[in-house]
């Protein structure tokens, strides 16, 4: 109970921290919206040539674009999130202090990242999606159940995204230069989440592999849940996300234990 309250407080402070930057949020919304328009037009051209490409009709493809813009900041698909601060604390050695806190390191950062994601879903996600729905004909479900499932999928997307970024961040304990790691993490996320192009459009065996990677859980799956393209009424997608979340969080714990040993033995 105490632990839950503590983590809620951490999440709330993460939320508030991002909420103070109103102008930055407005600027982000503007940029997401502009990118949404650019991408939407290229998708229109693409689906004009090949209707039903990737199993979507044009309206579904456009919906995918705007979900992507709404999820961009929320699931930190192009970087941004806790990892910059984490790297800074590894570099200057403050992370040793964190390890001796009464709360678990992974849980602490997760709570704070979840608070951030919650703010960015509201602050940066809703407006671009609304603008997209206003400017284009989108396929948005009318059933509240689907929206609820979508919210679950967004939550799990943030969990998987966090778990992935946490793994990369932990590697900073062994590699001195974390900028390369961040770059790699972002690169993989941008391409394999579906941010540039829905993963269902990726051809052949390559597409098969890509759709099974954990990054698919951060955008492709939530989008499919909302579009009603995920099997089992969306449950298949949620199961996929959950499986990756468990595996990656567990891997994070193992790596964290190794990192802790390293810090304890070498003093950082």
């Amino acid at each position, binding site marked *: 109970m105490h632990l839950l309250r503590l983590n809620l407080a951490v999440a709330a402070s993460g939320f508030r921290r991002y909420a103070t*930057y*109103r*102008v*930055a949020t*407005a*600027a*982000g919304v*503007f*940029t997401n919206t*502009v*990118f949404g*328009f*650019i991408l939407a*037009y*290229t998708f*229109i*051209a*693409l689906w004009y*040539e*090949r209707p039903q*490409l990737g199993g979507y009709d044009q309206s579904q493809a456009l919906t995918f674009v705007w979900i992507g813009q709404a999820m961009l900041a929320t699931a930190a698909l192009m970087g941004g999130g806790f990892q910059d601060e984490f790297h800074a604390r590894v570099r200057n050695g403050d992370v040793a202090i964190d390890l001796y806190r009464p709360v678990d390191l992974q849980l602490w950062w997760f709570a704070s990242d979840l608070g951030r994601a919650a703010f960015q879903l509201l602050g940066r996600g809703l407006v671009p999606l609304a603008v997209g729905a206003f400017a284009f004909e989108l396929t948005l479900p009318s059933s509240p159940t689907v929206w609820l499932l979508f919210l679950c999928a967004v939550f799990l997307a943030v969990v998987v995204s966090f778990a992935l970024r946490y793994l990369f961040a932990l590697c900073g304990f062994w590699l001195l*230069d974390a*900028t*390369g790691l961040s*770059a*790699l993490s*972002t*690169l993989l996320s*941008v*391409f394999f989440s579906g941010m*540039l*192009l829905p993963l269902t*459009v*990726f*051809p052949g065996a390559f597409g098969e592999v890509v759709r099974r990677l954990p990054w698919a859980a951060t955008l492709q799956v939530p989008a499919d849940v909302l579009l009603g393209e995920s099997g089992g009424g969306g449950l298949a997608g949620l199961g996929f996300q959950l499986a990756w979340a468990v595996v990656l969080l567990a891997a994070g714990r193992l790596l964290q234990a190794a990192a802790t040993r390293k810090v304890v033995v070498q003093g950082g």
Partner: protein
Amino acid sequence: MAEPGAVERRAPGRGLSARRALGGVAWGLRAYGFIAAMWVRSTMAYRASFAMMLVANFTTTFLDFAAIMIMFSQVDALGGFALPEVAFLYGTSCVAFGLADLLLGEAERIGRRVRDGTMDILLTRPVPVLSQIAADRFALRRLGRITQGALVLGWSLTRLELEWTAGSVLLTVSMVLCGGLIFGCLFVLGGAFQFWAQDASEVQNAFTYGGTTLLQYPPTVFGKELVRGATFVVPLAFVNWLPALRVLGRDDPLGLPGWVDFAAPAVALLCCAGTALVWRAGLRSYRSTGS
């Protein structure tokens, strides 16, 4: 070594201010040069790290083209343009943007500098503030974007069955250079805007990164309103769309008179003049409000 003091000391007159302005620009460029050189030397001390970042920059920026290739694995044309033609647009847009990003990309940190107070420090040095900001952390890893853009451009030239004339070669070269200038202006304008709105650095991304993404696709893909906006409001169309359509032998969707295809240098110069005015206004505003 021409002392700027020496220039200033001559008798006042009309000729002076022009010469002084030119002297100022020359000094600003030279200062940019030695600050950038210092950063290059300093990053080269960590070669492995530099190589990694260069590869990361190359690969990240190449992903956009990877997405285009995947698109063309499913279709033969986009907006009526085949892959080599889109690659031509992509390459010119990328190289032009990459040049601006390499030389002036740091301007996007102005808001942060105002917030943390380091802007004040720049104002206490006898070097133009823009030179100091733009050359700060000068990073050759940004050559990654230029390289991959140039490779795609080169590939497209081998695939495009065009009759090259001196004119179209000149037009292609000017696309990259004038485009670089136009994008550079956008970077500086975005930076200057942050003198008024420090947290709004992301707004400029819509025009810079958004702009280069827009120009990677043919104008026929986009709504007429968007193309008009990218021609008359933010003159992105002059970076590659208009001249490239001429090189590719295509009609422009807005049906503008033919001479506009050659207007990029003039547009770029106009942009520079406008940007200079806005930049000075921004700096003046900072010096009067301190924030």
